[in-house]
């Protein structure tokens, strides 16, 4: 697929948005008007990554990220609804669905007549998947009985099919295996709960589901029974990739709005853009936004290499969600008092961006995990002389932790290493993709900051230990 198809699609999205998508209204009313969802379906957006055989466009992951970026530039709730459908919602069905499962669901999902959702978080299992309590037990007739509670299910209110993670004891010969299950939310015993009231993304639907002994046919299992943990890792890669793309859209909108404002707003007899501090903050913000975009493109380009995709989307999720939030905050700051007023549209940008640092893997957990992965399977230092100093800085940080399993107990250091890895990956992606002098300047700035991040000192041990002990005893300063 080339720009010949994606560019016109992005233009169509922007044209459609001009007359139909009113972001402030979506935020205020806590809903996306059904006509907007219908219109997006008619544009083919719900089928962009689905196979052409079932009515989708069969676009690449890179193309899908461009679609989600374009949507997020306009409205983050809309981008989240479509992105969730394309990533977490349908990825399992596309990757492991049998012909019968695909034939049943994909045509309507590709047309946008049906919308997909994904249910994994539970009251006692967020980032810790081994704590999943939802369970599906096979009876003598091969049918499964699903019980459990799932929280924060995006697209829940209008979903026609859910992909649900559940423990499936005994299935596929695994005593404690996990499986991905296709569940019709209208099945008897599948009880949807009221819409959550949220800080942001108010137009997207978020509900809990309680499953009370829901009967599922044996063909509700996606792919090999008991392989849900590995499947989940891949589905989450897609979710994180498209979530990161949404962050790029937010960052671009924030940056554009901030730039417009600082050119117009005059203080101390000159435009804000004439102030050196403002210039430096925007220069760095531009570099971060470019790094976000480059990392998303690089991660999506790895769609066929699932291991690399998983590693890069972990980096992109943390880098882009932190960057998107930071840029939305900067846009408010540069707008001054008006940024705090809802009508300028800056406040909703920041509120919408806040959750991206939490969902699809809380950033602190992902950073610790990224550090762990770098410890156990270190990436190879490239020979490129521009990139080598940056990669060596991360390697030095890793080697300082030791090469044995004792390093696994140093969680704060793993977290710091994970952040260094995320910066390294963003700076590397930016360096490899930069073509113009401005892009090369962005990449150079990112490389310098990435090396600084790699060599950041931990908190001083003595005072930190005293404060931690005090906090554990409930003593506040």
């Amino acid at each position, binding site marked *: 697929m080339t720009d010949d198809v994606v560019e016109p699609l992005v233009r169509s999205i922007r044209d459609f948005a001009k007359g139909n998508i009113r972001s402030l209204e979506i935020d205020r009313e806590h809903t996306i008007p059904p006509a907007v969802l219908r219109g997006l379906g008619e544009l083919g957006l719900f089928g962009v990554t689905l196979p052409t055989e079932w009515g989708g466009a069969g676009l690449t992951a890179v193309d899908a990220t461009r679609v989600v970026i374009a949507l997020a530039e306009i409205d983050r709730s809309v981008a989240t609804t479509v992105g969730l459908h394309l990533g977490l919602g349908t990825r399992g069905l596309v990757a492991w669905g049998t012909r019968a499962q695909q034939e049943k669901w994909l045509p309507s999902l590709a047309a946008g007549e049906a919308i997909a959702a994904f249910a994994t978080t539970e009251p006692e299992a967020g980032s810790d998947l081994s704590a999943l309590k939802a369970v599906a037990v096979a009876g003598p007739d091969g049918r499964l009985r699903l019980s459990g509670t799932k929280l924060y299910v995006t697209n829940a209110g209008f979903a026609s099919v859910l992909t649900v993670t559940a423990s499936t004891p005994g299935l596929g010969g695994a005593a404690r295996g996990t499986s991905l299950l296709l569940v019709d939310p209208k099945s008897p015993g599948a009880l949807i709960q009221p819409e959550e009231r949220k800080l942001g993304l108010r137009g997207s639907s978020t509900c809990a589901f309680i499953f009370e002994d829901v009967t599922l046919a044996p063909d509700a299992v996606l792919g090999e029974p008991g392989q849900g943990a590995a499947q989940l890792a891949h589905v989450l890669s897609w979710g994180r990739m498209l979530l990161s793309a949404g962050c790029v859209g937010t960052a671009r909108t924030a940056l554009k709005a901030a730039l417009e404002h600082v050119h117009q707003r005059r203080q101390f007899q000159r435009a804000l853009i004439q102030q050196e501090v403002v210039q430096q903050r925007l220069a760095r913000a531009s570099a971060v936004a470019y790094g976000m975009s480059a990392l998303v493109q690089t991660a999506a380009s790895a769609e066929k290499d699932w291991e690399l995709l998983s590693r890069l989307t972990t980096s992109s999720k943390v880098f882009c969600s932190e960057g998107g939030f930071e840029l939305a905050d900067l846009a408010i700051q540069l707008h001054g008092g008006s940024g705090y007023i809802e009508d300028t549209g800056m406040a909703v940008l920041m509120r919408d961006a806040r959750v991206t640092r939490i969902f699809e893997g809380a950033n602190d957990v992902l950073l610790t*995990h990224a550090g762990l992965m770098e410890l156990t399977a270190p990436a190879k230092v490239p020979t490129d002389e521009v990139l080598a100093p940056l990669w060596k800085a991360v390697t030095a940080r890793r080697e300082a932790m030791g090469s044995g399993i004792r390093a696994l107990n140093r969680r704060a250091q793993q977290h710091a290493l994970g952040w260094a890895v995320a910066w390294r990956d963003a700076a590397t992606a930016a360096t490899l993709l930069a073509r113009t002098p401005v892009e090369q300047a962005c990449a150079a700035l990112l490389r310098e900051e990435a090396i600084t991040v790699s060599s950041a000192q931990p908190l001083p041990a003595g005072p930190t230990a005293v404060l931690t002990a005090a906090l554990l005893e409930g003593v506040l300063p």
Partner: protein
Amino acid sequence: MTDDILTQRIFKMMAQLSVVRVPDIKMEHRLREDLGLDSVCSMELLSMLAEELDLDVPMEEAAQVTTVAGTVEMARRHLALKQAAAAS
């Protein structure tokens, strides 16, 4: 430490990370498929081994272990190496 005591200590660590109880853990169980330990939990298990048994196993070697028996054997081997080093 006898083999039985070592095995029981490792089973207890595994049970802390899994919903499978100590009496139900078998040597032939696989960490992921049978105990439900994903990659993060498996690393958590190694972290507990390092802490509670005062072991330091090279990361590459530890990352290869996928079963209960493999975990016990790795711990046994490295404890023996440690004792031999201390005695020499």
